[in-house]
């Protein structure tokens, strides 16, 4: 098992996929991080030397990702809600925020516009 940011990963997992499991870290950022440490795109965790894994963890800990990133988004929504704005209310109701029609096709809004956006916190060590 390989630990990155105190999360446990299978050694056969692709490094790219591993990095992208963190909320707020997508394809662009993962590609850049991997280039920075000279890890090729098809590398698996088992082939990455432990030294690099440590530097990856150090690199990730300086970034606003995962629970921090999630909380940032949730705080922004909460702020709108607390101010009592229209956008805050629409978020709380799970409806489109930016003036779209609501007759049909609001699946994305139902999915995304919630106060707890991005799900709950990642439990430590999982």
């Amino acid at each position, binding site marked *: 098992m390989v630990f990155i940011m105190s999360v446990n990963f299978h050694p056969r997992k692709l490094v790219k996929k591993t990095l992208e499991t963190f909320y707020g870290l997508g394809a662009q950022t993962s590609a850049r991080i991997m280039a*920075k440490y000279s890890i*090729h795109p098809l590398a698996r965790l088992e082939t990455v030397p432990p030294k690099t894994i440590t530097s990856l963890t150090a690199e990730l800990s300086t970034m606003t990702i995962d629970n921090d990133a999630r909380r940032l988004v949730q705080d922004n929504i909460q702020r709108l809600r607390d101010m009592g704005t229209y956008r805050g209310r629409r978020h709380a109701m799970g409806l489109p925020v930016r003036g779209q029609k609501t007759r049909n096709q609001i699946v994305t809004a139902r999915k995304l516009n919630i106060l707890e956006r991005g799900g709950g916190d990642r439990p430590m060590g999982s």
Partner: protein
Amino acid sequence: MAAPNCWRCLARPSQRLLAPTSTSSSLAVPVTTATFSTSARLAKKEGGGLSSHVRTGKKLVLGRKKKQDPGKPVLPGERKAFRKRIQLSNDNALEVPGLAQVTAATLVDPAAAGKIVGLPDALIDQLRTVEAFKPTQNWGLFRSPHMLVRQETVDLIKDMTDKVQKKQTVRTVITGERGSGKSILGLQVLSAGLLNKWVVINIPEAQELSTAHTDYSPIPKSEMFSHPTYILKLMQAIYSANKDILSKLQVGLEHIHLPFSVPRSMSLAALANATKEPDFAWPTFHALWQELLLPGRPPIMFNLDGLSHMMRVSDYRNPAFELIHCHDLALLRLFADALGGKTQFPNGAAITGVMTKGNCPKLPSVDMALEQAAAAQAGTEIPARDPFYRKYDDRVFDALKGVSVFNVKGVSKPEARALMEYWAASGVLRMRVDEKNVSEKWTLAGSGVLGEMERASLYVVRL
């Protein structure tokens, strides 16, 4: 007399149970209920006990699907290993008697042109270790590996060996149509190198190094990148293919930068085999290369297949997230310098790059550089670059400066006949090999393009 129930209730007696219309008459009710009660059906169900469905017998009943045992799951890498397997013999094919084994003299003998020769076992092992055989070639159709010595083979190898014996460097690019036998010619060049006891280094597929499928790492204090795992594998191949030659050579330079001690008594074979650590792969390989360049060593044969793949910008990225040019990857830089004439070989060397046409990136620089090299070789006017095309890559022109371009074309008719006779004798070609059939296949194959001849004749039996 009017019935106590309405006519609708007589027609559909079950309705009556749901909505009794009249309770006034107690006379007719028991009769109707008795006739149409469900108890008869219930009794039948209890007695029969077979199928409960009303439409029994009218339904299409298929046999229940048998759950098959899924067996062992496919292990990682197993499918690729199967796809890339190289089968060099086939017990179902007939043995072809009376064919000579290849020797160093055969490959330069003009009399041997147009003959089929067998590969001796020792040579097969060496060629296999340097990965000269490819999964796309049809070795698995025949009892044992044989190859056709073409006029081109003799011309190329004779020229090469003559020059290398005079301690010159031969820099060749083998090009030609798709399926015309460029890689097989590369294999024949490698066989010549191995039979002449040169130090043979072969990169079987340049694509593996440029498509970012193998690991890479920056080389400290340089702008280059190395392929640690690939270079370790390559050194193993060099060691096993050239063990006899390398074990007789001693280390002649100081290698203080290497992490292990390299005494003067150490053989080059031991040096090639010295490390298993990816971190030290490139320094060790570089030390071995420096040793081979010392005067008094045997000639070097350095081959690379898929030349166009190393003439472009690779898919690797440097820490600044810029794409790395293939010539900044250390191993490919080594080959590019050797092919471009930047490296001096005091003992003579044969540097051969084999183009690929089936799987080839579009590279105007390579096309132009080869056109220019071919024109310079033929002594005609050298074509100028397109003035309106900005993306010419000067590094490609440097790497292909002054190479001799060897264009592989279709085989001649006598060669085609020799080949078809061999196929027929092996039992894979079931037709009379006469003038007419040979001519037909030769024409169908676009004037004897070998790959097309195989397609026209052998693919009926290929699995």
